[in-house]
């Protein structure tokens, strides 16, 4: 059935750079006084409270936990509303005795390498962590008074046991998802 609803001529040949409407950066916070590194290029866990650390230089000692990571996302650019923000581990197998814990929407405190009580990070979208805006809302409305464009913190920590094998762990993939209009 023909659809007679198109009332404009669409110019497919018109070259327009369709820039992303909202853009994002990830940041990590460290130190007692919170020093933010933005953007970060990696999320390496290690035995020091430092962003973008080199794991070979700061390996996690078997049976211990890594220093916690305080991760945030910051949106810039132009959008109308961002919502439905989720975070989960979407792939990557643990080695024996290894786990990654995560907590959403926490307040920043100086990262520690004492094993925290956070739950294991969800591994499916259905049980993903629901991420809030820094202001505590489920959405981020562009231009709204007091809106920083930041999410709240996601705290991550990798833990090992005495039975965890030495060496490099398997690559884990985390997914951060959000809806934008």
């Amino acid at each position, binding site marked *: *059935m*023909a*659809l007679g*609803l*198109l*009332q*404009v001529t*669409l110019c*497919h040949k018109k070259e*327009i*750079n*369709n*820039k*992303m*409407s909202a*853009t*994002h*950066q*990830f940041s990590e916070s460290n130190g007692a006084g919170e020093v933010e590194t933005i*953007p*970060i*290029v*990696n*999320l*390496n*866990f290690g035995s020091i409270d430092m962003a973008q650390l080199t*794991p070979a230089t700061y390996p996690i000692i078997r049976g211990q936990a890594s220093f916690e990571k305080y991760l945030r996302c910051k949106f*810039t*650019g*132009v*959008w*109308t509303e961002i919502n*439905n923000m989720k975070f989960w581990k*979407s792939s*990557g197998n643990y080695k024996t005795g290894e786990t990654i814990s995560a907590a959403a929407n926490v307040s920043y405190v100086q990262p520690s390498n004492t094993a925290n009580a956070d739950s294991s990070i969800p591994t499916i979208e259905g049980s993903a962590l629901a991420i809030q805006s820094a202001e505590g809302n489920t959405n981020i409305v*562009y231009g709204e008074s007091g809106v920083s464009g930041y999410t709240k913190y996601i705290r991550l920590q990798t833990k090992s046991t005495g039975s965890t094998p030495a060496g490099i762990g398997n*690559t*884990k*993939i*985390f*997914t*951060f*998802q*959000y*809806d*934008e*209009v």
Partner: protein
Amino acid sequence: MSNSIDKISEDNNSMNFLAFRWIAIFSDGTKIEQFENDIEHNFQEIKDKFSDLAYFNLTDRKGHMFSVDLINGLIGYNYLTLPYIKVKEKKDNIRLIYFRRHQVEITEKMIEKSHTIIYFLGIQWATINNENRNIILQIDENGDFIINGK
């Protein structure tokens, strides 16, 4: 968009371009294109006159075109109405569904391994029994799509 925003986009997102752009056509014949004269219009401009929105189209550079007719409650793909039985029922209070779902994959070694966008496009309406129904297309960046509805 300012140069600084462009720079942020280039530096921190693996995908700098939207595959699809929208065109909104209103009942008085006026239209807003998402990108006009190198300016990006905010979707809020559509929301501000939502009740006057008549047609909403998504188009890409490969020639794919998805169109929503908010007057009759139809969804089209490349000038053809998508066959879907519920489209034929009487519909009241027809409203547009549109958003982009971003999925950013992060690894320890790479803060952005991939960034994919799925375009959600559809309509919701009330039946004669005042039940809420919807049809939503999930369109990937290549123009392939699936249909969901309830």
